[in-house]
């Protein structure tokens, strides 16, 4: 993308003044090199988002922005219901509440080294991954609704984890306002046996070594110590979220003219928040958030079972769980006035700064852990929310590296077996049901996650705390 399309405000902030039907400016937080590498579609999609009714302040793109569906991936936009604001199924995305959670093992990398192969094999055998895999549970209609209403809390009540886990999950593990009755039978049918599965594509469970600490105060508060090993899980609401996304996208496209909404792109389909369709979507979308939280909670339990077998006495305490495809109602101060806004984050992580009342008591003075996933073989990062973030993009940060190359290109450039062997020679064990899937997800097919994180840090969206290096990757 040509940086000249934007007015440069600082080294890492670029703006487009409203033109055409744009109601607010478009803002990208990234350095010049990252912008040059972005697809032209990011400009088109971001300026399209700025045309939506009731949008507040600006349409934002994070440093990892890339071509998405309607919204760019890495897009953030907030809407005011009282000013005709909309909720957009495309603005949340298909994999509703896809996210990352990271857990302590309390083990040092030297302790893990002799056990690495066994851990990789056992985790791969125990945690369902890839197409057609099924989880440890078969949900009855009654249990399905209970799960959709209560999220990770439902999982904990069924013995998958503890109350302490819930303190470290956004929304305390249970998104309020979920309405299982708004979730179609098809979506529920698709999810019946998928709770506790990783899925495929870019989803994974990784063992990671903490290799560098940048902020000792925040690292101490998050209990991150150099050389220690953590477990990170990246996945979402599985088939249920996708089915809800597809169904409401169609309904919103068909209903848009009746709501007086002119869509610049059908994928931006949306409905007024105060309409029956908008409310139905919010109820279903929140149920999908709970599905994702329950899913990551059950997978956590499976990982704990493997660790307690191989390294008895190990506790996997949850550091934090973030979702990066959501729409949440949050109070934000705009022009000196506090307003309750519906903040869409599509491939963007919430990043509340110190003092935010939504943070657990023991983290409130330091800020929210912001978990940034890498891509097999590359680093992941833990950041912390900042005070300045609230004035940047409604307390939001990047979510990962973002693809730089299509799956087609990736499979032409890499072969799965050779890639697995090459990563093994660098001490990274890959376990996956599909070698082609591994090739499509080659680390080289992604942008440089370190450059993305640097830009987020310099833009004041979130501050770097620690860098993690993968040791084992169970790839979906």
């Amino acid at each position: 993308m040509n940086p000249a399309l934007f007015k440069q405000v600082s080294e890492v902030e670029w703006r487009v003044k409203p033109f055409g039907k744009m109601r607010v400016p478009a803002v990208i937080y990234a350095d010049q090199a990252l912008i040059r590498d972005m697809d032209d579609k990011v400009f088109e999609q971001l300026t399209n988002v700025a045309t939506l009714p009731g949008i507040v302040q600006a349409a934002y793109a994070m440093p990892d922005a890339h071509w998405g569906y309607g919204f760019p991936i890495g897009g953030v936009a907030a809407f005011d219901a009282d000013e005709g604001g909309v909720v957009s199924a495309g603005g949340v995305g298909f994999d509703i509440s896809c996210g990352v959670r990271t857990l302590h093992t309390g083990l040092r990398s030297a302790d893990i080294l002799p056990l690495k192969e066994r851990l990789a094999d056992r985790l791969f055998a125990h945690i369902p991954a890839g197409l057609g895999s099924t989880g440890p549970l078969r949900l009855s209609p009654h249990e399905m609704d209970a799960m959709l209403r209560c999220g990770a809390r439902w999982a904990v009540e069924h013995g998958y984890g503890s109350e302490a886990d819930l303190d470290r999950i956004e929304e305390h593990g249970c998104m309020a306002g979920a309405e299982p009755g708004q979730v179609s039978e098809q979506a529920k049918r698709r999810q019946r046996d998928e709770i506790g599965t990783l899925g495929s594509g870019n989803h994974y469970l990784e063992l990671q070594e903490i290799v560098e600490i940048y902020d000792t105060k925040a690292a101490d508060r998050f209990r991150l110590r150099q050389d220690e090993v953590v477990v990170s899980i990246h996945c979402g609401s599985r088939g249920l979220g996708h089915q809800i996304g597809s169904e409401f996208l169609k309904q919103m496209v068909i209903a848009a003219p009746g709501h007086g909404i002119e869509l610049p792109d059908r994928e931006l389909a949306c409905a007024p928040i105060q309409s029956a369709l908008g409310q139905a979507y919010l109820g279903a979308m929140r149920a999908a958030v709970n599905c994702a939280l329950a899913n990551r909670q059950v997978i956590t339990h499976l990982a704990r079972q493997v660790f307690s077998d191989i390294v008895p006495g190990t506790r996997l305490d949850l550091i934090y769980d973030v979702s990066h495809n959501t729409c949440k109602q949050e109070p934000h101060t705009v022009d000196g006035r506090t307003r309750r806004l519906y903040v869409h984050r599509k491939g963007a992580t919430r990043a509340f700064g110190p003092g935010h009342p939504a943070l657990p008591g023991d983290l409130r003075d330091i800020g929210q852990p912001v978990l940034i996933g890498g891509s097999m073989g590359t680093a992941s990062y833990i950041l912390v929310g900042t005070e300045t973030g609230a004035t940047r993009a409604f307390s939001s940060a990047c979510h990962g590296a973002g693809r730089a190359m299509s799956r087609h290109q990736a499979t032409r450039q890499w072969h799965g077996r050779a890639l697995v062997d090459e990563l093994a020679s660098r001490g990274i064990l890959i376990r996956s049901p599909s070698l082609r899937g591994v090739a499509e997800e080659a680390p080289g097919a992604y942008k440089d996650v370190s450059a993305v994180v640097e830009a987020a840090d310099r833009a004041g969206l979130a501050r770097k705390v620690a860098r993690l290096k993968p040791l084992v990757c169970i790839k979906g």
Partner: protein
Amino acid sequence: MFQAADAGNEDEYWTHFPHQADMGVRGVGPTREAAFEQAALAMTAVIADPARVAPDTAVAICCEAPDDELLLVDWLNALILEMAARHMLFSRFEVSLDGPRLSATAWGEPIDLDRHQPAVEVKGATYTELKVGRTASGGWQAQCVVDV
């Protein structure tokens, strides 16, 4: 991402086209129905080699949408739902269209991880690069990007 098999008919085939994060599927045929059938085959090929999927079990599919393009997305999404809920892959399709309504039969078999070697799960059909229309040679083309 397998190559389209030679169906013995150069007017009827499927292809993939690139998208930065996902994959485009395109079906071409002498009729709208044939183009929809080929697009479905292209979607199976994102997951696994369709030649390895035995068309043993038939599943009936119906959907309805106000225009051809929304109908294509509905058709592919209906197949995605059946694949996910039944743990099946499909390799043969018969589509009939009647105004806004589609009724079809898809033939396939349960997923066999060893034999099918599925690479990715297709999560949804999207409105990106969505087109249903005539080709220059007078046939039909149906395409969109699928989210993987």
